[in-house]
Structure formats: C-alpha cells, structure tokens
C-alpha cells in the first residue's frame, strides 16, 4: 500500500461518532449495600474473613487471599484512620487548572485491609492521622 497515499488537505475524512449508551446502572451487591448503609450511618464497616481474620474495606463478599466467603455480619472499623499516601490535583485531565488544588488521599485504617479514597482538608502528610468529616464516596477528612 505504501505506494499509494493521499495526504492533501481535505482528501481525508474524519468520521465522528460515539460509544455512549444512555447510562450504566451499577449495583453494589448485598455486601456493598450494607457497607454503603454503614457510611450513611457514619460508620466504616468491613467484611471479615472467617479464616485469616482480615477485615476488608470497602466490604466485599470474599477474601482476596483465602478466596472464601466473608462473614455475613459486617464489623465496625474502629482503628485509627491515617493517610497511606496522597496527591494534589492541580489540573483536570483535559488540562484546565482547578480553582483550588484538590488533596486526594488513600485513607487506611489500623488493622484493616484496603482503605477508602478521601478529600483531605489541611496539609497532607504520609502516615498522618485524620478525622473523618463526612462519610461519602469519597470520604472527607481533616488532618489531625
């Protein structure tokens, strides 16, 4: 083919279209449902593996190590919440500068496997303890 190509202005067509259904509606499953309900009640709930004892946040139906079903009743997470790592977003992904830079952290809890994303108020630092200000997805937390 290399012998034949046109490249003059206007000789090549770009065809515009999309791959967009009206919407996707995702469900969380019974365990996810209970976890979300916990957030609404201002609680962090985790699912515990009956074999290894790991507690997962967000709660999921199975233990990723033992690969067995987690216990039916979720347990409340009471351990210290801290910043596992963080970043600050300055621009959106189309290159527009945000009015206020946004601190996003991955918050972990002592004694828990997993964690939750959070918007951080205050100067973020790895390992710093945080206080949960609101229980949405993501969480909102304040550096202690």
């Amino acid at each position, binding site marked *: 083919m290399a012998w034949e190509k046109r490249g003059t202005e206007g000789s090549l067509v770009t065809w515009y279209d999309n791959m967009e259904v009206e*919407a996707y509606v995702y469900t*969380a*499953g019974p365990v996810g449902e209970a976890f979300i309900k916990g957030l609404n009640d201002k609680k962090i709930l985790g699912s515990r593996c009956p074999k290894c004892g790991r507690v997962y946040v967000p709660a999921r139906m199975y233990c990723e190590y033992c690969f067995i079903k987690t216990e039916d009743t979720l347990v409340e997470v009471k351990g210290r919440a801290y910043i596992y790592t963080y970043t600050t977003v300055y621009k959106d992904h189309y290159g527009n500068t945000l009015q206020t830079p946004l601190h996003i952290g991955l918050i972990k809890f002592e004694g828990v496997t997993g964690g939750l994303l959070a918007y951080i108020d205050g100067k973020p630092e790895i390992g710093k303890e945080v206080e949960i200000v609101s229980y949405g997805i993501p969480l909102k937390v304040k550096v202690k």
Partner: protein
Amino acid sequence: MVTGLKDEDLKKVYTVTYKPNAKYGYSAGQAYSVFLQGLKDGKILGRRCNKCGRVYVPPRMYCEYCFRPTDEWIEVKDEGIVMTAVASFISWTRERLETPEIVGVIRLYPSRDNDFVYPGLFHRICTTYEKVKDMSIIGKKVKAVWKPKEQRVGSINDIECFKEVE
C-alpha cells in the same frame, strides 16, 4: 449464591448511574475517504486486487486473501442481487416500530451467482414486508436509490435504499 433481582427491586437497592463520555473521530483513512467521496458523487467505488481479481466493496487498500496492496479503484454498478433481507420491528434501542425497517445484503455487479465472496453492501431495501416474509425479494435484482445530489454528504446514507428493478 448470587441474588437475582426483579426490575422493581432495582429501585430498592443502592445503584450508581454513570453516563459514559466516549467520543471518537475515526480516521477514515485512504480507502474509506475515497469511498465516502464516491458516494457523494453518486458512485460506489471498490478496490480490485489484480492477483485474485477480487473487488472489495467497501474498499480496502490491501487484499486480505493475497496479503498485498490492492491495485486500482473501480466503480462497481449500483445494482445487484438481494442475498438476504429481513424486516425489523424493533429499533436499535429495542423500541417497537410500527412499520418495519427492511434491510439486507446486496451482491453488487459485476459478480456471478455462484461466487462465495463478492462485492457486497449491507443496506436498506425498499420493498414490502410481504415480499420479505415470503422470501420473494431474495434473489431479486435491485438498484440504488440515491438521495438528491445536494443532500449527499459522503455517507452510506447518501443511498436511501436499494429498490427492485425489472
């Protein structure tokens, strides 16, 4: 054990709704750019491989059977034989249509009845549901009905449909 949900259950459980933002500007490239311009000009253009003689409609710059570049542009007839035809009573979002939309495959000329591969086009066919239902449209000769020149934009829709000719 997974849990089956009824439609009405869906309102009771937590859901996240997301509208994808997935937009593309597909490069038509060499073959389709010329093909689309051809449609605008009222022509169906194909590419021929001089080694095996196959004519590609829609065109390709390479022959997939011989794995070599195709050699030349040729204008095929806007006439051919209906290979199959169906009558759709549902839209692409599965809504009910009152009048069926009739589509099918047309084997364009030049080609022969016993060819397994041929220049073929997928398009609407202007005919009646009855002729689809009794299959009499299959095997009939049809010809492209073009949109008026000023309405053509370089799209497969520049052809309204293929219509039976005597």
